[in-house]
């Protein structure tokens, strides 16, 4: 498992989700804190490409040996891509939560929503 980290180029949702904004596409995942709390992830149940997700609402489930957890959307929009690699290797969410362990890409419907999200320092402060 990777060491604790909260990269500066991401925005964070209080339900322990992150988004990497590139133009009007957001890449979504769960934070190091979330994957550590879950333990070994054994299953990611992705939403369908083309489906809509809403900020602050659950859009997928991550399941570990210990628990099932909802994944919350930090932004609203339409799913344009899901990380197919997770079907065979869900442990990528533990090994590399901000890289190969990304969950979905979203065509953001309201890029202004990101203003309500926390930066790395502010998010990390909530974990104290």
């Amino acid at each position, binding site marked *: 498992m990777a060491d604790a980290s909260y990269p500066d180029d991401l925005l964070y949702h209080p339900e322990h989700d992150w988004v990497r904004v590139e133009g009007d596409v957001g890449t979504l995942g769960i934070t190091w804190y979330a994957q550590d709390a879950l*333990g*070994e992830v*054994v*299953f990611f*149940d992705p939403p369908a490409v083309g489906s809509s997700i809403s900020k602050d609402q659950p859009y997928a489930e991550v399941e570990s*040996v*210990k628990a*099932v957890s909802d994944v919350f959307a930090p932004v609203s929009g339409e799913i344009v891509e899901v990380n197919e690699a997770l079907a065979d290797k869900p442990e990528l969410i533990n090994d590399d939560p901000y890289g190969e362990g990304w969950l979905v890409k979203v065509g953001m419907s309201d890029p202004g929503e990101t203003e309500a999200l926390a930066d790395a320092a502010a998010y990390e402060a909530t974990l104290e």
Partner: protein
Amino acid sequence: MPFAGWEMPVQYAGVRQEHEAVREHVGVFDVSHMGEIETLGPQALDFLQLVLSNDVAKLALGGAQYSVLCNEDGGVLDDLFTYRLGEDRYLTVTNASNHERDLAWMRSHSAGFDVELLDRQAELAMLAVQGPAARALVDSLADTELPPRMRAAEVAVAGRRMLVCGTGYTGEDGVELLPVAADAPAVWDALVDGGAIPAGLGARDTLRLEVCFHLYGNDLMTTRGPIEAGLGWCCKEQTGFLGAEAVAAVRAGGPEERLVPFVIDGPGIARPGNAVIGGGEVTSGTMSPSLGVGIGMAYLPAGLAEPEQRFQIDVRGKLRDAVVKPKPLYSGDR
């Protein structure tokens, strides 16, 4: 995590890693929460024959036997291993969460028998050493030969005398050690120094479920009987054990539901409590580290409880396809 009043690690290094260590090499579990009840006296056999479902008269000196404890309605109070330590001396291993109830149940039925019942839960620890390399490891620390499978013997391990049993809960070869509690840390250290990987409750659950061993509280309960649970093989109704009439009636009439192993066909993991479409419920479910698919056990209507029967499980509102499989779900090379 607290479990029946005991502090128990769910995992040490990680469930998957610990699971693989037991399947491929050797792991050690601290299962000291398990209870032990010693039955001794001239009528020990007669008494155990009344409470245990199996034919205790078949239990040879130094032997081990699996059975269930039933109430008069034929519901399962516990499932347990009994070891015959002497001519009139037996040790029965209980599940932690049932230990007090088992003891009270046995005491309440011991009147009129010349037996003594000793609660040895606090006195004895229990370390399960499991995996293809388990015997060789314990053997290297032992002063005499280890008992074979389904046998038990007094052996000194790491210089401490204890009961060693050729039993386990993982589907792998191995032994279970019952040192007195004060000796357990030194024995644990010797096993770990010898290469055993510490394994927690998480791996214990994935390992036992792959080989379809029952877990009390999940797959066994007072509201269902041993025939429904597929444990008719350890019930010998002719011995007249408590609950035998009820068990015999279910056996004769056929159970309405039966516990079966299943695999999920496709993604997803069913969990205990998930409903089966058409009746029944999942009682155990996990992701199998050895098989890489969701597995579990479920009570199904008897008509559906046949290998390769397909059915659906409601997993938090999503229907998952599942297939009934024969036991065990995982058998390694054997």
